[in-house]
C-alpha cells in the first residue's frame, strides 16, 4: 500500500533532527566558559592529558572542524572519559541503562493499566459522581511533584507497611522487580493523571461524533458502539500523547532515580551535573534525546498503521 512508504520515508525525515541534536549537544558543552580541554578533563588534569584531548577533539582548529571531530568520535563510539569514574562514558552509560529502561517501561505499563479503566468510567458516566471524582483525582495527580510523591510512597509502603525496600536496585530479577515497583508506581501515578484526562476528553469527543449517532440509529448497543467504534478511534490520539509524554517521563525518572537511589541514567546525569563531569552529561543527554526520537518514530509508525486517513 502506498501509505506504507511512510515507514521508509519517516526515518529519513528525521535526519535533520538528529543533526540538530548533535549540534545542540556539541554547542552546549563548548559554551561553558573556560578552556574546553580543562573542562572536559576536570580540575586534576595533567598537561599530557590536555595535549591528548586537544589533538583528539581538534580544540585548536576552527569550530566547524571541531564539530566534525566530535561527530567522528561519536561514530567511533568515543564519548570521552568520565573524570569521576575514570571509564569511557559509553561503557558507563551501558552499565546504567538497564534500570532506566525497565523503570520507563514499567511506569508506562502501570500508567496505562490505571488510566484505561478510569478514563472509560469517567467517559461512560459523564457528569455523574464517578466522573467528577475521577476528574478531581486526576487534577490532583497533575500537580503531584514526583520527588515528594516518591517520599510519601516510601513513607507509606516501605517504612510504615514494610512491603517494599526503601531504595536500591537488587541483584537478581525477582529482587529488581521488587525494588522497581515503588518507583514505577510513583511515575505511573503522575503519568496516569495526564493519560486519564486526555483519554477521557478524546473519548467524549469521539462520542459526540456523527458516526456514533449513525451507529445508534442502526440499533447497535451502547456497549458495542463504545468498544468497537469509540475506543479504538480514541486510542489513536492517545498513542501520540503517550509518545509526547515519554520526554516528560524520562525527565521524571531523573528525579525518581535520585530519590530511590536507583543506579540508572537519570541518577548518573544529576551526579554528573553536580560534579561537573561534562563528558557524562553530554553522553547521557544525547542518549535521552535519541531515545525520545526513537519513541516518537515508533508512535508515528503505529499511527500510520492504525489510522487509514494518515498519509505522509
Amino acid at each position, binding site marked *: 500500500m502506498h501509505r506504507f512508504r511512510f515507514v521508509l520515508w519517516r526515518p529519513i525525515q528525521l535526519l535533520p533532527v538528529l543533526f540538530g541534536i548533535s549540534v545542540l549537544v556539541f554547542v552546549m558543552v563548548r559554551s561553558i566558559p573556560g578552556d574546553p580541554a580543562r573542562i572536559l578533563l576536570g580540575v586534576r588534569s595533567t598537561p599530557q592529558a590536555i595535549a591528548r584531548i586537544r589533538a583528539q577533539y581538534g580544540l585548536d582548529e576552527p569550530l566547524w572542524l571541531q564539530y566534525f571531530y566530535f561527530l567522528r568520535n561519536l561514530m567511533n563510539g568515543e564519548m570521552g572519559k568520565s573524570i569521576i569514574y575514570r571509564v569511557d562514558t559509553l561503557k558507563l552509560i551501558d552499565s546504567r541503562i538497564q534500570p532506566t529502561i525497565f523503570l520507563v517501561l514499567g511506569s508506562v505499563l502501570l500508567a496505562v493499566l490505571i488510566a484505561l479503566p478510569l478514563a472509560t468510567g469517567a467517559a461512560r458516566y459523564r457528569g455523574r459522581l464517578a466522573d467528577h471524582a475521577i476528574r478531581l483525582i486526576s487534577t490532583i495527580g497533575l500537580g503531584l511533584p514526583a520527588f515528594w510523591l516518591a517520599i510519601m510512597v516510601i513513607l507509606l509502603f516501605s517504612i510504615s507497611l514494610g512491603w517494599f525496600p526503601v531504595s536500591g536496585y537488587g541483584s537478581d530479577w525477582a529482587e529488581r522487580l521488587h525494588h522497581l515497583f515503588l518507583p514505577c508506581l510513583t511515575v505511573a501515578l503522575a503519568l496516569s493523571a495526564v493519560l486519564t484526562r486526555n483519554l477521557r476528553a478524546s473519548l467524549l469527543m469521539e462520542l459526540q461524533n456523527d458516526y456514533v*449517532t449513525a451507529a445508534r440509529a442502526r440499533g447497535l448497543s451502547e456497549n458495542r458502539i463504545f468498544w468497537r467504534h469509540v475506543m479504538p478511534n480514541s486510542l489513536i490520539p492517545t498513542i501520540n500523547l503517550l509518545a509526547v509524554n515519554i520526554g516528560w517521563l524520562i525527565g521524571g525518572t531523573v528525579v525518581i532515580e535520585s530519590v530511590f537511589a536507583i543506579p540508572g541514567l537519570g541518577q548518573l546525569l544529576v551526579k554528573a551535573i553536580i560534579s561537573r563531569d561534562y563528558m557524562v552529561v553530554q553522553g547521557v543527554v544525547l542518549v535521552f534525546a535519541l531515545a525520545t526520537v526513537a519513541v516518537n518514530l515508533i508512535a508515528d509508525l503505529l499511527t500510520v498503521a492504525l*489510522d487509514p486517513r494518515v498519509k505522509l
Partner: protein
Amino acid sequence: MTLLQVSNLTIEDRLGTALVDGVTLSVDRGEILGLVGESGSGKTLACRAMMRLLPGDGLAIRGGEIRLNGADVLAYDDKRMMAVRGREIGMIFQNPASHLNPVMTIGKQIAEGRRWHFGASRREARQQAIELLRQVGIPDPARRVDNYPHEFSGGMRQRAMIAVALACEPKLLIADEPTTALDVTVQMQVLHLLRDLRDRLGLAVILITHDLGVVAQTCDRIAVMYAGRLCETGGKRQVLGAPRHPYTRGLIECQPSSDGGVGRMVTIQGQPPLAQRFPAGCRFHPRCGRATTECTSIQPEMRVDPGTDNHAAACHHAVSVTNRGMVHGQ
C-alpha cells in the same frame, strides 16, 4: 397501509419551549413522504424522535404518540427500541463523511449490521456487503468493499451510507437532507437511487429537505413545517399545485424556477424566529401578508379542506378548493 403513525408529537427543551409542537404525520408502505422546512423548523428533531434518538441534553418527548405497525414505540424499553432502530427504521444523513466511522472499512460497517441484527457469519456478511454495494450502484464492489470512507467521493459515500442502512433491512428509511451537500448532477443520481429502492424493496421513505424542487420530483406526499409546527400536508400535486398555507406559497414563490423569471424575487419578509422567541398564536403571523388579529392570538388547527382528499393546512385564512381561482389569479 399505514406503517408509521405519529400523532400530536411534542418535543420540549429544558426550558419548556416546544421545539416540535403537535406534529401529526403518517407514512404508508412504499411511500415517499417529503418533510419540508427551513433550518430550525424542527423537521430533523421530529424524525429523530421517531427513533427515540433526540440529540443533546434536556430534549424530551413531552406528548403524543408514535405507532409503528400499530405498536406504541414510546412505550418500548431500551432493548426493544434497539431492535426497532436500524431493523425497522433506518436513517441516512446529510454528511456521510462524518456519519461513517473514518477508520473502519465500508465493508465492515455494512457487515456490522448483518452480523448484529441477523447473526450472519463474517464470511456471509462480507458477501452481503458486496451485494449491497452493487445494489446501491457502486462500481467494482468486490474491490471497494475494503476501502475506507475517505477513499470514496461525496456521492459514493452517500451511496455507501445508504448501503449501511439497507444492511439492516428496514421498512422505513429516514433520509435527512441526503443530497444537500452534493452537486446537482450527483443529487439527481442519489434521488434516482432512493426512488428505485422504493420501487424494488417497497421501502417507505421520509425525505427531509429544504428544497421544494427535490420534493416535487421525488415524493408522493408532502408535509411542510414551520417553527416546530406543521402548516400543511397533502399529496404532492395538491400542496405544490394549490398551496393552502401562505408559508408554503411563499416558499414556492421565492425559489426561482428554472426559467429564471425576471426582476426582483418574491420574498417572505423577516426571518424564521428563534426557538425562545416563538410568537404567540400562529407562529408564522409576523411574516404573513394575510395575518389578522385572530392570527396573533389563536393557534390555528390543522384542518382538512372538505373538497379534497386529506389536503390539510393550519391557517385561519387557508385557501380552499372552492376559492382557489382567487389565489392563482394573484
